[in-house]
């Protein structure tokens, strides 16, 4: 079984919009692959149809069976991580083996605070 892993420097799982997120992709592969790709993306889950946006990606060519690679992504201004009753928007970084699409993923939180924006809470005036 392939091992594909993403870690962030300092094990940070929360980043602010505009931050530079750095980390390391590590892999142990059973078979040769064409390439690896590190992707920064957001995705929705909930009642309706799913949506996904790949914000940035780094391709690694000439891949050895075992290895690691440092990466850095500039976090965009949005969207923020949020949740509600009908939809949750989450961010993640994944390491994908091509063409098999085997992957390892690390969920991160993007927003001004270290908690996702919660649309289920109401503000009392």
């Amino acid at each position: 079984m392939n091992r594909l892993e993403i870690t962030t420097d300092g094990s940070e799982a929360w980043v602010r919009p505009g931050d530079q997120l750095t980390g390391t992709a590590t892999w142990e592969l059973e078979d040769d692959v064409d390439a690896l790709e590190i992707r920064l993306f957001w995705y929705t889950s909930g009642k309706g149809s799913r949506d996904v946006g790949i914000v940035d990606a780094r391709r690694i060519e000439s891949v050895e069976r075992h290895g690691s690679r440092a990466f850095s992504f500039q976090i965009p201004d949005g969207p923020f991580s949020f949740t509600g009753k009908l939809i949750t928007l989450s961010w993640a970084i994944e390491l994908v083996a091509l063409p098999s699409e085997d992957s390892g993923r690390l969920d991160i939180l993007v927003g001004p605070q270290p908690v996702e924006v919660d649309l289920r809470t109401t503000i009392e005036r």
Partner: protein
Amino acid sequence: MTAPASRRAADNPFSAERIDALTLRPRGWTWDGLLARLEELDHRAAVVGPQGSGKTTLLIELERRVALATPRIRIDARDPRPVADAFRRAPPDAVAGRVVLVDGSERLGWFSWWRLRLGWRRAAGLVVTRHAPGRLPTLVEMRTDPALLRELVAELTPGEVDRMGIDLDGLFRRHRGDVRSCLRALYDLYADR
């Protein structure tokens, strides 16, 4: 601020991605058997069943398992030019040797249907979904019943089906056997628990 009165969408077992991930296949069939039957029919066949019976889910799985399949083409009833749109997504010159998969073919009129069949005549096959038999030999007929709904709910919420205390048979009746619609209703019930 008050505490949330509902569950996070991402934690709802009836979310769209979890429903889509269900390995729904017609009762009494194995995938090998279904693919052999498709080959017998020269890859020209229809998946038949009422709304919400899992036809689209089956077509998605066929797309994955039939190595030469084109991406699915969904016929939209609101599209004023369904033939042009279908040919744009699966150009006749590009489908030679491949199997074209069409979701919602009952929405095509007779003339549109035959234009597509002629346009794709060099394709290796044509598999469509329909609400009723016709136009192509039936590959399989999708049927739903309360037992199927209970099985799917048990798969989505292991160990919780009895604890939920929901009358699934009644839900099935109210949604006239549309299992997808039942699962969407369960999303709302579960969200507010």
